[in-house]
């Protein structure tokens, strides 16, 4: 019995020292980690809404949850250039998170994969930038397309999937489809055509 108490106290001492050390490290790194997360979102927003003023992108909360972002042309915040949202879907080995930007009639104007841990050399090629190019070819395919009924080539769609990574490609494509549907419900509906904006 005495032995158990002694051993227990030693373990308690060791774990206390360990947790004290960890709380110090956590306090030091916490602001940096949050800053990194914010930077990822910020960069993705700029890629998704290329025409928006970077100081005029506003998050929209419904029931205390972040649903989407509205991008304005300038800081007057009158002319909406588009909406952006985070599309999520389980890929092959990770949840793929993609920032997607659409204009007011629902055409995709920019996308950026923010988070994925897919198979290196296969699924990770959804972010591949080919030699001599500056933007990832897989994501570029979405730009200019209406965000409804998108599908990869294996599903008889028009999106060319990454070789050997149909699951990752399909996850991105489907998450965008679903996300745009959700967004449309949240904002009411997209405008029918561009002319309406000019009236």
């Amino acid at each position, binding site marked *: 019995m005495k032995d158990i108490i*002694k*051993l227990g106290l*030693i*373990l308690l001492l*060791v*774990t206390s020292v*360990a947790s004290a*050390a*960890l709380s110090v*490290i*956590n306090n030091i*790194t916490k602001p*940096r*980690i949050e800053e*990194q997360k914010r930077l*990822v979102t910020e960069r993705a927003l700029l890629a998704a809404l290329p025409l928006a003023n970077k100081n005029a992108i506003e998050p929209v909360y419904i029931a205390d949850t972040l649903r989407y972002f509205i991008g304005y042309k300038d800081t007057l915040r009158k002319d909406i250039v588009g909406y952006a949202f985070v599309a999520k879907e389980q890929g092959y080995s*990770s949840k793929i998170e993609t920032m997607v930007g659409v204009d007011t009639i629902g055409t995709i104007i920019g996308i950026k994969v923010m*988070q994925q*841990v897919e*198979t*290196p*050399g*296969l699924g990770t090629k959804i972010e591949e930038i080919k*030699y001599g190019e500056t933007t990832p070819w897989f994501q570029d395919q979405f730009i200019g397309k209406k965000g409804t009924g998108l599908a990869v080539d294996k599903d008889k769609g028009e999106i060319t999937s990454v*070789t*050997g990574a149909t699951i990752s490609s399909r996850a991105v494509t489907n998450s965008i489809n679903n996300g745009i549907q959700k967004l449309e419900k949240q904002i009411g509906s997209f405008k029918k055509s561009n002319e309406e904006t000019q009236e």
Partner: protein
Amino acid sequence: MSITKEFFKGFYKENPVFRLALGLCPTLAVSNSVQNAIGMGLAATFVLLCSNVIISLIRSGVPKKIRIPIYIVVIATFVTIVDLVMAGFAPALHKALGIFVPLIVVNCIILGRAEAFAGKNSVFYSFIDGLGMGIGFTLALTLISIVRELFGDGKLWAIPIFGPSFEPVLLLILPPGAFLTLGLFLGFFNWIETKRSA
């Protein structure tokens, strides 16, 4: 005990991966690109070095009955430090290594060195042992990853090596490629050893 012997044994003679066949899980999982391999190798080396030093420091006060839980607490603490620091200062690497950073806790090289070396030897030699073994692990990972990334993806350190006409052997960066490459290396080093002793 000679310093050079303790330091260099991890490179070849007692290489954790090729000679002792320890820590194979992270070896198989993150050797798909050179960047991942070196990142994982350095993270594991840091943890190994720190845990070896601390365990050697406290070895006289650690009761035999609970030495394993104490070692694990020490190792887990350093792994968490690596995880947090990496997330804050090297987010790209942290993203690429993913779950394998926290899993350094159960990398048997680290607990193995604590049990076999740091728990019995002085702080100085434990430091040398940790550093040597860590570098040995990093070298092994790097060697495997060079083969896998070069032939499986046509790149080295994410830079394309062959022209656009090169058709990479996809299998090599997939899990079977990890087993094949590791197996060939293990066979190669065993072959050298039998040649030597013959």
